[in-house]
């Protein structure tokens, strides 16, 4: 079956005369036809934005329970590997990213289960206290009075990277805030967002009416400015540089949330290693590194290992078996030519180090470029990551590992702390103060819950503004009755 080439979703109410359709200038060295994109003509954005704001009004009139249920119903379908829509989406993502079908399926499973009702309700209660506040004024005993949470009239989400399924996350968050969304897809994986939007629209056309998914190139600054001028909230994903370029233009937007590129790592203590055992820990590290092909900001680039040379080499041996086993279950896929070249050169340099220049160094790899393990002296030696290239760094103590991470504090994201109490609490506190926003055990790095404060933020609550009724006798009298 030929892949649907369309990467955009345009609400049904938009008149075709307001749109242009073109071949997206997205280089795809996996071959294939160009992706087709539809977007509003440059002078029509304000009209379209007006329409989206009207759709927001419709969302505001819906109970939050209905929105949660709709997302849940759609997600239940997405969680079925045999659903034809998911299979078509998988094929498109495979083509766009070069990931293997197995790796994409694994990514979908990990990513999409977060949008089931239970998870969404927990997010709302964790961040808002009372989710009903999204539907109108609710009693707030601590105020005392009543409070109402209001989302943006229009949210712009700018996606990046190639974590399959990730664009759903910010679309869902905006919908929970009852906000219409303009989603700008990333060249690295432009296909998923439109398909997700279409699936929501099929369940409830009014939700589909509140979503617009399209694409423009980074250099189209005037277009970005035009869209920014219509949006109340902006959610930007991207590299330091890409985020900065959006941030500079988003000064007048009331809400700006950023998910920049981040650094994640694992730490394994000596006692924990002894208690859990190297083979089990190796399997868990392989899971952390393998999921999303290590393209997610929550994936570890290195694991610090407390122990001597022999202990680290032993873990390297175990990890090589685990990485191979993982690759057999979930192959990496097709590396881009440039990535293969970089990897080959890095492997050669590391092979030289491991055999000639530094006896403490080490290298394990498969011949198919599926995975690489390098023993590195310190973080300064670490340069390559992504596509399942993991550095193991021996340390005398986990304190030493945290010290090494200190200069990168503001970029720290996810830390797997392989340690037991009471050491765990001590290290976790230090890691939190350093800048980490998530701590978990080895093997669970790739599957943060939706409840997690992503990048340390309240990602639904952060989109809201509140209106409180207080100091009003009439209200009190009514509530006292």
């Amino acid at each position, binding site marked *: 079956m030929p892949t649907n080439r369309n990467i955009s979703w345009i609400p049904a109410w938009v008149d075709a005369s307001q749109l242009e359709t073109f071949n997206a200038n997205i280089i795809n060295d996996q071959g294939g036809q160009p992706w087709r994109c539809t977007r509003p003509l440059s002078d029509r954005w304000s009209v379209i934005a007006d329409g989206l704001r009207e759709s927001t009004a419709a969302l505001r009139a819906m109970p939050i329970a209905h929105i949660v249920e709709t997302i849940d119903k759609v997600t239940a379908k997405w969680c079925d590997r045999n659903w034809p829509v998911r299979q078509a989406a998988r094929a498109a993502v495979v083509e766009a990213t070069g990931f293997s079908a197995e790796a994409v399926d694994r990514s979908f499973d990990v990513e999409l289960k977060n949008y089931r009702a239970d998870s969404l309700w927990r997010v709302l209660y964790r961040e808002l206290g009372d989710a009903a506040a999204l539907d109108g004024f609710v009693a707030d005993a601590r105020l005392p009075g009543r409070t109402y949470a209001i989302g943006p009239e229009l949210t712009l989400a700018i996606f990046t990277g190639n974590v399959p399924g990730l664009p759903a996350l910010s679309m869902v968050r905006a919908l929970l805030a009852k906000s219409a969304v303009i989603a700008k897809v990333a060249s690295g994986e432009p296909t998923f967002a439109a398909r997700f939007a279409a699936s929501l629209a099929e369940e409830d056309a009014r939700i589909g009416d509140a979503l617009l998914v399209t694409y423009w190139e980074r250099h189209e600054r005037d277009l970005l400015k035009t869209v920014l001028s219509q949006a109340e909230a902006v959610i930007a994903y991207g590299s330091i540089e890409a985020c900065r370029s959006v941030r500079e233009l988003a000064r007048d937007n009331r809400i700006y949330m950023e998910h920049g590129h981040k650094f994640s790592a694992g730490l394994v203590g000596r006692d924990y290693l002894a208690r859990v055992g190297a083979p089990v820990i190796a399997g868990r590290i392989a899971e952390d590194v393998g999921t999303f092909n290590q393209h997610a900001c929550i994936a570890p680039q290195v694991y610090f290992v407390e122990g001597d040379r022999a202990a680290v080499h032993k873990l390297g041996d175990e990890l090589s078996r685990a990485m191979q086993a993982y690759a057999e279950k979930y192959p990496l896929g097709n590396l881009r030519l440039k990535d*293969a070249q970089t990897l080959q050169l890095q492997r050669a340099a590391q092979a*030289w*180090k491991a055999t000639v220049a530094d006896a403490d160094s080490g*290298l394990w790899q498969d011949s198919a470029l599926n995975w690489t393990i390098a023993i590195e002296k310190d973080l300064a030696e670490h340069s390559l*990551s992504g596509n399942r290239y993991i550095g193991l760094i021996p340390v005398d103590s986990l304190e030493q590992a945290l010290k090494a991470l200190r200069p990168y504090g503001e970029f720290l994201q996810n830390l797997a702390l392989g340690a037991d109490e009471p050491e765990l609490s001590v290290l976790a506190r230090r890691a939190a103060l350093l800048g980490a926003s998530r701590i978990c055990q080895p093997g669970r790095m790739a599957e943060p819950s939706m409840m997690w404060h992503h990048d340390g933020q309240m990602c639904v609550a952060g989109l809201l503004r509140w209106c409180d009724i207080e100091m009003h006798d009439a209200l009190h009298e009514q509530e006292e009755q």
Partner: protein
Amino acid sequence: MFRYKDPFVQNLAEQIAALISGEAIDRESVEQALEELALANLPQLADYWRKTGCRLGIPDAAFKNSHVYYFPDQPAARVFRTSGTSGADRGAACYSPLGLKLMDLSIIENARRHLIQELDMPVIIRFVPTVSQAPEMIMAYGMELIATTFGDKSRSASVITGNGVDFERLRSILDQAVSDDQPVVLLGGSFAFVNICDALEKLGWSWQLPEGSRTLDGGGFKGRSRVVRAGELRSAITKTFGIPAGRAFNVFGMTELASQLYDANDREIGPLDERPKRNLPFLQARVRDSYTLAYCDRGEGLVEIMDSCIIDRPHRVLTGDLGLASEDGVAIIGRVERGQARGCSLSLESIKF
């Protein structure tokens, strides 16, 4: 372990010298002997090959921090260092007296065949510092050797001073050459040529240099602020010096190599008009497939250079360049990207302190 004075080493050097000079020497037996020397004096090389899964050239990273030198019983006669444009540790390549002799021979023979050809005592002007100004810079060394070997000594010079290019001196030498109808050979870094052509254009100076004049640029544009198409550079050379594109040669060399590769012909096969480089019995660029590392005859891949003139360390180098293999030879078309992170992971390189 072969000692430096071992007849095996001395004999091998003689064989290589004969190969460079064009004598009918069996190239493969020389390669075999070089490998024998490598495995004897650097036994870990076998481990490296086992790790890489093939007899891969040593990576350019091998020259950083520690460097390999086969002969502890013979102090190095000369050390060349990389410019370290990336800010990383500067690489170093050490030469024994025999190694340096082979290097000299290679530079001279290669220049005779590919650059000087029929010219007799041309004026040779260098846009690189002198050896005394930059004793560890291999390009300064090689170009000075070419100038002193082939040039008209009374008129040849480097026009690079502590303050940059001495344009007045350049002008007076070129004017004199034009009036005497004496061919000129201009040598220098690719980027220096670009800057000098730009500067001369601003000054409004240009020449129609005598018939047979030619240029040789090397180094390319790696680590430079600006990338210039090879064809653009050749046009600038024609415009400034009146030298046709067919006599504007490019050379590929690096601190990690003893020999340099010259253009095989005028065909512009690379994306930035790069020409294929000519392989010689003692010097061969090959391309390894980006995915399998197998040698390939066509297409893009990693450049590996076999330089038989390297006798002090492994003679095959994975240079870190990208090459385009063709029937005429390999065109060097850029550098392999380093230090990156894929997806939403932050590259530490981008925030290294």
